[in-house]
């Protein structure tokens, strides 16, 4: 945690904190010197980067015609994967639950995610380690992740899934594998992953049996063959060289492309990786949309965006920039009860605070979510957790509908870049929308007269 130098007892006594060597940096240097090991943690990037809060929506007044809130219809459904699959997913809301592994999360948490998603007609996603009975049982729509490690990879589960997501990268660590430390590798987790109990679980950073987009095309065909061309195939990339990655995913035959920005969460990886690799979600969306548009595939190959999406405003802005849906991970965990003040004392005993807890790798989560400890995980009631998640998903959707109606849209997908302006030059450049009050999009010639 970085503290400002205006904290009581510092500024008043004339002490000045260094912007370069702030207290968090000093602490990390001291920790590194003491342990000789880099910091591994969960959560996603904590540093401030241009984000959806740097965008504003332009509600209608005269030049645009708004729809009546609460009365006029504003639809939210989305069809994913209708390019090749016999059975595309038809979701009621454009918010899905991102892939999170059993192992990283408790079985109760996975079940709660399935319950919450199903209640509002959307999908949840497996993660590294395979499919659990709990999540399949409770998820009306379940996306099965096909990961480099192939832990627990089972063709029967491929057939049991409603869609298959080939994971090439994750926003929190593009190019990196996983590091689930041994303390979370219980008998059940180890059994699913064919590993000895207590051994650090290293997830590979690259797929074992293909090496490039030409191979991926053949791999996708194999997956389609095995599942008789029934399931949509998603390809998920961590946001870095997004334009090229999306274009190659489309070329490889993806039905849906998932782009996960650098604010995306993780169960455990190096802090230096989380904070210093990848590009902000905001910057990735226009690149992805550009690739899809240039290939004539925008809205034909659907785009799901994830990485730091928190509320209906973020959702509306993602859709306006050209996404078809968003995925939430960290926000979903918070809805279940992650970092709840209810456990404030226990967080403190672990050297953290409610609102700051990110040591998912330790497996001692007081909220029972990012743990395999049976006593701790029993604290999470999957029914109650599911209801809380469903509430969040409903609120996000209603918020996006409210904003869309204000922009005159009868479907949230009708939001468009023209509905957006940016508060900062950085956000304007990344999102490719005008700086508020101007017609200026950095990097592009200004429009004549600058009248809007």
């Amino acid at each position, binding site marked *: 945690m970085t503290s400002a130098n205006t904290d009581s007892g510092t500024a008043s006594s004339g002490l000045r904190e260094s912007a370069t060597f702030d207290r968090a940096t000093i602490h990390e240097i001291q920790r590194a010197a003491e342990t000789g090991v880099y910091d591994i943690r969960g959560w996603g990037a904590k540093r401030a980067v241009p984000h959806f809060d740097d965008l504003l929506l332009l509600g209608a007044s005269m030049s645009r015609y708004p729809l009546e809130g609460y009365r006029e219809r504003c639809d939210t459904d989305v069809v994913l994967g209708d390019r090749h699959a016999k059975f595309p997913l038809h979701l009621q809301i454009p918010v899905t639950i991102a892939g999170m592994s059993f192992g990283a999360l408790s079985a109760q948490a996975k079940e709660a995610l399935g319950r919450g998603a199903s209640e509002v007609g959307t999908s949840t996603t497996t993660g590294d380690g395979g499919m659990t009975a709990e999540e399949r049982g409770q998820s009306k729509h379940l996306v099965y992740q096909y990961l480099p490690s192939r832990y627990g990879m089972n063709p029967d589960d491929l057939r049991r899934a409603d869609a298959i997501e080939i994971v090439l990268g994750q926003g929190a660590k593009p190019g990196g594998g996983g590091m689930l430390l041994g303390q979370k590798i219980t008998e059940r987790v180890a059994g699913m992953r*064919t590993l000895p109990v207590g051994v*650090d679980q290293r997830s590979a950073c690259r797929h*074992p*049996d293909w090496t490039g987009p030409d191979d991926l095309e053949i791999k996708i065909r*194999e997956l389609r*063959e*095995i599942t*008789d*061309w029934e399931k949509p195939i998603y390809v998920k990339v961590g946001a870095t060289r997004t334009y090229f990655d999306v274009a190659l995913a489309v070329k490889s035959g993806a039905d849906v492309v998932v782009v996960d920005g650098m604010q995306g969460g993780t169960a455990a990886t190096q802090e230096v990786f989380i904070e210093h690799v990848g590009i902000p979600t905001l910057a990735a969306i226009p690149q992805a949309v550009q690739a899809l548009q240039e290939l004539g595939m925008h809205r034909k190959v659907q785009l799901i965006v994830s990485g730091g999406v928190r509320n209906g405003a973020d959702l509306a802005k993602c859709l306006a920039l050209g996404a078809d849906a968003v995925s939430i991970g960290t926000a979903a965990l918070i809805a279940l009860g992650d970092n709840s003040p209810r456990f404030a004392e226990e967080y403190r005993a672990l050297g953290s605070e409610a609102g700051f807890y990110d040591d998912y790798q330790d497996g001692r989560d007081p909220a029972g979510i990012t743990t395999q400890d049976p006593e701790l995980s029993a604290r999470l009631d999957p029914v109650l957790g599911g209801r809380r998640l469903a509430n969040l998903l409903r609120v996000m959707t209603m918020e996006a509908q409210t904003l869309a109606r204000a922009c005159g849209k009868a479907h949230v997908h009708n939001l468009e870049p023209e509905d957006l302006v940016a508060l900062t030059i950085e956000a304007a450049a990344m999102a490719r929308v005008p700086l508020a009050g101007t017609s200026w999009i950095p990097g592009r010639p200004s429009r004549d007269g600058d009248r809007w």
Partner: protein
Amino acid sequence: MTPTDPQPTTDRRAERTTKVVDLASSSVRELNQALHESSSTGGESSAVEWVITNPQGEHAIACGLTEPVHVRIEGHVGYYCAGMNQRAHVEVRGNAGVGLAENMMSGRVDVSGDASQSAGATGHGGLLVINGNAAARCGISMKGIDIVVGGNVGHMSAFMAQAGRLVICGDAGDALGDSLYEAHLYVRGTVKSLGADCVAKPMRAHHHTELADLLSRAAMAYSTAEFTRYGSARSLYNFHVDNAY
């Protein structure tokens, strides 16, 4: 799909019904759909032998099988032949491309010739026999599969192999067994180099028994005394700065 031989014939030696599919006139999609539908009917599937002619290096031939059918492919196959096999016996009379029998769960796959890279990748069970050579990353991330290679294997074979047995009757390339977990590796010839955390280990009685059984099932006539066993030193099992690579 319509097999090119619409009149099933009976192989008197094996008492099996034979169905022939010519990939010069049928598509891989049609073949796989027919194989899957045949599997789903169950019952008599093991009494049927499928013969695939003119495979022409096509990809994903006979992948996703779930029942104990016998599929004989007369010629060379492309990527992911017999991928994710369950219970079937797939025989390739030729060479195989990348990812042969990848993620096999059970059953058996035999290749008379050579296999390209990542043969048996992430396989959970069953037996893969490659009579010729295998290229790089043979048995990568294997999770319980048994692989017997009559010839040599390329570099990074058994990379991150977790469980199962890899038998190499010829030589191994660079970085054999890099980041190995609990898989057993047996090499008859030379090893160009060992990967991180992979070490030679003594052959105990049960290793000779295990290896003899694999060689017998693969019809490889070698003495187990000719082999060296390799396994994990387990120094990378829990992350520590002193053994980081």
